[in-house]
């Protein structure tokens, strides 16, 4: 049936209002608008990396993995710890910095992948046929455990993350009053590369195909000879790779991390995953970017204390008018 339903109309009206408001700001203050957009994109790329983990896990076992935000923070903590072994220079970009980054990035990603497989093995796999809410509670429990480990390790204070990326004069430019630093470009480009790699992996490889099959129908996939346990473990592994990378990027960008950073970031990233249509991988990436942009606009044009209300208000609005998210398809109820 073609034609628009009432919820669709409501959704379009809300979108149109938002676009008109932003267009007004863009015309009256183009420089500020572009500047805010750049910050929003950088933030959004990090949200996107975390959101992908949420959406993949939800897609395959229908679990809201509350521990995922803390896996992200853990990545930043472990990254900071490993970087402590290098004699890097925070004031200028040296060869040591480059080597440190090139070594630490994949190492942190792999460590986080391993930790997440462990979490899945201990806390989620034994409960796969348990009541639906049981794994949700263990996810909350694992989130507390991870936060507890970081708290025990570094204490409640903010931890400094080494400022390794090239910064300062020579690594930044100002075009028509818009400031662009190397860091902003680095964040967006790294996230884009990782998301592209993920998309290729999911669509082109055997394991990726197995994941899609398992997400569609676990029993049927099993009957086709797919090792379900391995596929689900792989999903957790890849989700944690991205979360670990996100944690590293967050640390490199903001240079400040704290033990319960993952709670707020995780909630926002999860919102992004729902926003894009949960279970949908391009949706999570786009949702992350959009949420980053929306929070940046809301920070500047409405006031940062209202950002959370705006983000979650939009979440509710999207779900009311478009229950399956921006890119989600309407699936019949099982």
């Amino acid at each position, binding site marked *: 049936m073609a034609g628009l339903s009432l919820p669709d109309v409501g959704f379009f009206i809300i979108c149109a209002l938002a676009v008109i408001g932003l267009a007004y700001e863009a015309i009256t203050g183009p420089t500020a608008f572009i500047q805010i957009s750049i910050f929003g994109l950088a933030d959004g790329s990090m949200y996107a990396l975390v959101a992908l983990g949420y959406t993949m896990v*939800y897609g395959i076992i*229908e679990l*809201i993995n509350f521990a995922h935000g803390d896996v992200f923070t853990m990545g930043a903590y472990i990254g900071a710890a490993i970087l402590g072994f290098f004699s890097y220079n925070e004031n200028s970009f040296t060869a040591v910095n480059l080597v440190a980054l090139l070594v630490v990035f994949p190492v942190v990603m792999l460590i986080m992948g391993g930790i997440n497989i462990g979490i899945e093995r*201990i*806390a989620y796999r*034994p*409960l796969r*046929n*348990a*009541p639906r*809410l*049981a*794994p*949700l*509670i*263990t996810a*909350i*429990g*694992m*989130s*507390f*455990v*991870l*936060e*507890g*480990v970081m*708290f*025990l390790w570094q*204490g*409640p204070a903010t931890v400094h993350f080494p400022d390794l990326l090239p910064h300062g004069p020579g690594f930044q430019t100002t075009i028509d009053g818009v400031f662009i630093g190397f860091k902003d470009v680095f964040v967006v480009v790294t996230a884009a590369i990782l998301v592209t790699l993920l998309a290729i992996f999911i669509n082109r490889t055997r394991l990726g195909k197995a994941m899609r099959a398992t997400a569609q129908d676990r*029993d*049927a996939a*099993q*009957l086709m000879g797919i090792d379900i346990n391995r596929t689900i473990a792989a999903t957790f592994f890849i989700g944690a790779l991205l979360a670990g990378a996100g944690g590293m990027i967050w640390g490199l960008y903001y240079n400040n991390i704290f033990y319960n950073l993952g709670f707020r970031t995780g*909630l926002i990233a*999860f*919102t992004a995953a*729902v926003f894009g249509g*949960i279970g949908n991988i391009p949706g999570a990436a786009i949702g992350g970017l959009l949420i980053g942009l929306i929070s940046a606009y809301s920070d500047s044009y409405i006031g940062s*204390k*209202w950002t*959370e*209300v705006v983000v*979650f*208000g939009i*979440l*509710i609005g999207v*779900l*009311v008018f478009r*229950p399956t998210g921006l890119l989600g398809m309407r699936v019949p*109820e099982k």
Partner: protein
Amino acid sequence: MNEPATRRPAWLRRLSIRRIRDRDAVIYGVLLLLAIAFPSAVLYATGSSALISQAADAGTYVLLAIGLNVVVGFAGLLDLGYAAFFAIGAYTFALFSSSQLGSSPLHQSFHLPFWLMIFAALVAAAGAGALLGFPTLRLRGDYLAIVTLGFGEIVPQLSYNLPQWTNGINAIGSIDRPSLPAWITGPWAGANNIAIIQPDVCRQLTNSTKFAPCFSFGYDPIAFYVLIVITIIVAVILVGNLYRSRLGRAWMAIREDEVAAAAMGINTVTTKLLAFAIGASFSGFAGAYYGASFGLVSPDDFLFLVSITVLVMVVLGGMGNIPGVIVGALVIYFVLNSFLPALPPAVESLANTVGLGSLNNSNGNWPGLAQEIQRINFLVYGLILVLMMLLRPQGIFPSRVREQELKHVAVQDDEAAVEASHSS
């Protein structure tokens, strides 16, 4: 079937728990006895009413868990923002029973009585639940969870961000205390003869260890304890009756299979909306009680962690089973408020007796043993949650019906797999 019975000695058979037909009735009985004996036992043993005040606070969580159980356990709707309704109840009471609105743009403060406001809070929370539920309840289960999560984040943020109304982070203080229109005094309260006391002759509590509720509840924890215990008993009876009613059966039908329930003629939207609103109303009631007993309502008391805690209580206790949920609430409350805070001093004194007393002092990066144990608290709580869930995924006392269903579902899954293999 009689084989194990014949092996047991006769006296053991008589004691056997199997002879008690209804496990839930036993739990209710034990809980009721404990609730009645608790205040006098505490006063006798410790001489102070601090523990009673804590027990009254635990009662708030029991009430919250009973309410959330209607939503999550009976109707199968996952609600991750239950604290929002708690906040709405508490703020409804706090705004209209304190001087707060006098300094708001309204310039007119109200001091409405607690007994009226507790029902107003109930209606406000139920109304908010219905308002939120109406457009969102047609969503599938998990999307509803996310909407409630968002709502649960928005409500405390609003109370932070609207300080002209809610006093923001500084909280609404000096909220009116509940008071009874009259009270009967007698020899049990130290008077010479039985008489009705009116507000003007109300005797102030000179000795807080004596059970002599006055016209005003004041800061007497025992009065609040009695109030919350009575409230919980009424709530249990109400919810138990709902569970057995036509509506309760409709909830369970929806929980098990929404499509089939709709085909049987159940109006799924109205039924789910009722579950949502009734669940929220308990939360509003608990919120008003909470505001009255603490005399202080701050947005910090209604964060996501509260919703999660109540959900953990419900799932851990045994979803859908009221006595199980009460036990779950008490266990989690005990772990959070008695067990974990008691850990650091306990470990410290243990270290002293073992001869490792030097660990207790801070030294360089080592913050001292008590501090270190306090840092572990989070970790311990997380581990307790994971372990309890792994050991009893169905909860401590799951409902008998659900236990049967779970076994049934496992069988069905196997059958479905076999069928699928035949058809492919």
